């Protein structure tokens, strides 16, 4: 456990000092909010103020970006000799990977706070009580941990940090084909089935319901099951990929 903490601190220190990535991580939430709310928002009709509609989507988009950094960092550690040194010191591989996930979660929560702050400045009026906020933070954290776990597996699969960063594309794309930015029923019929059933939609709907104080229905369970499933698959895959990587 203490190994994980030491390595989490290392990951956080390293990501704080990656100036370009840090600037992107800080600017992205602000820019996305401004682009969606100020530029596109007027043209998109969702039945509520667009800023209110779009907050969950931007939260998930930023989480996706930030966890793709995790894939790159894991791949770097696996290819740089770092992992050899740690293993020769009897540090468990799992401690390193847990450190990466924990650092990713901490980074993401910080960017989440930034997103909400920008949203409030742009006129976001949440109707959540303390429990609603806590539940929303919990669901977001579940998503972050799941997708960070997935990033770790991708980082172990990729042969080079460049290949690992290609993962960004996939996770940045998924929220667009969900109810995060526009209602699913405005999409062409062939895309609707995918958009309604991919994990981002129930997670978005759950966050939206919790923040606005409206009923979330079965979305909450579907969202948590997706997160648990993604995490479980990621852990199994990461274990197998790590074993293959060090053989």
């Amino acid at each position, binding site marked *: 456990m203490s190994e994980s903490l030491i390595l989490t601190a*290392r990951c956080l220190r390293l990501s704080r000092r990656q100036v370009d990535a840090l600037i992107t991580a800080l600017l992205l939430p602000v820019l996305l909010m401004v682009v969606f709310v100020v530029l596109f928002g007027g043209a998109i009709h969702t039945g509520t103020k667009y800023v209110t509609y779009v907050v969950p989507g931007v939260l998930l988009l930023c989480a996706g970006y930030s966890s793709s950094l995790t894939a790159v960092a894991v791949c770097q550690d696996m290819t*740089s*000799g770092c992992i*050899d*040194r740690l293993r*020769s*010191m009897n*540090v468990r591989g799992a401690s390193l990977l847990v450190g990466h996930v924990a650092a990713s979660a901490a980074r993401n929560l910080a960017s989440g706070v930034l997103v909400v702050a920008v949203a409030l400045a742009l006129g976001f009026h949440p109707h959540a009580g303390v429990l609603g906020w806590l539940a929303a933070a919990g669901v977001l954290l579940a998503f972050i941990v799941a997708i960070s776990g997935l990033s770790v597996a991708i980082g172990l699969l990729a042969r080079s940090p460049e290949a690992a960063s290609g993962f960004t594309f996939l996770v940045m794309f998924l929220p667009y084909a969900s109810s995060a930015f526009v209602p699913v029923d405005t999409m062409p019929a062939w895309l609707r089935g995918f958009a309604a059933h991919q994990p981002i939609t129930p997670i978005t709907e759950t966050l939206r319901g919790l923040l606005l104080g409206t009923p979330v229905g079965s979305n909450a369970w579907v969202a948590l099951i997706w997160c648990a499933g993604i995490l479980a698959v990621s852990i199994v895959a990461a274990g197998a990929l790590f074993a293959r990587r*060090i053989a």
Partner: protein
Amino acid sequence: MAEEHSVGANENALALEATGLEMSYGGVRVLSGIDLQMPRGSVLAMLGPNGAGKTTTVRILSTLIRADAGRARVAGFDVATEREHVRRRISLTGQYAAVDELQTGDENLRMIGRLRGFDRSQSARRAGELLERFDLLEAGGRRVATYSGGMRRRLDLAMSLVSEPAVLFLDEPTTGLDPRSRQTMWLLVAELAQRGVSVFLTTQYLEEADRLADQIVVLDRGAIVAQGTAAELKRRVAEQRLVLRLVNPDALADVAWALGDRAIEVDRGELTIVAPCDGGAREVRALLDEIDPDRSAIDDFAVRNATLDDVFMELTNV
């Protein structure tokens, strides 16, 4: 860390011993039966060209991978079945400096200290000692990204010494360094050896093995082709080289066959053969008479001094 020093029953063990290590990757034989013995407190250099299997050997001995066959004990413990005991007693400095560029030298060292089980203040104190000893005190507060190649290697070595290891593995510690930085690394390793650390190092440089090692093992294509002290190996390798130029390919084949394993290099394009000799007229005359009794095969010959490359070629071309 008192437990580190309670070696108990393993007090008199060799620092390292291996028998019959074999390793293949995807059907390609990388190591074919390596036997090694390294007395406690000595320096063993594994000398060999690229692709000889040096790094694979280090990875097996430092518990990172399992050999397909054979056994090895390091610091008295089996590298396959007692990994954790081995890992607590070794340090590995790999071929590529495993340092975090975005952390300072001091932070890198303190992190290793914490992972080795020291508390915060112990780690900080140890980091300070090592920075001073490795002439990095001024650079300690700077990020490693600003370091020169030599400074990185010194930091990498310092990170291996945070908890004094019983056996230190150095995989090509000076490859890619400029001559001055190489000298500095040599001094540091020699100092470690004097302090009684057992060092297993790999190198492509004969000079490095000569300078640092008590024992040299020459590895070529996965097999040990020679071993001994630097002096012993030099004695095995003659000081002079006889370069023969043959009249045609048939003559080349005949003379190469007559020389047997004395032919160090056979160049079919240039029609030349290189063999060791002492450079004296008597030996050269006798050799020429022996391999070319009709005096028809050899066009001309020259005697030159053996270079370090020749020594290496002779040992790795068996």
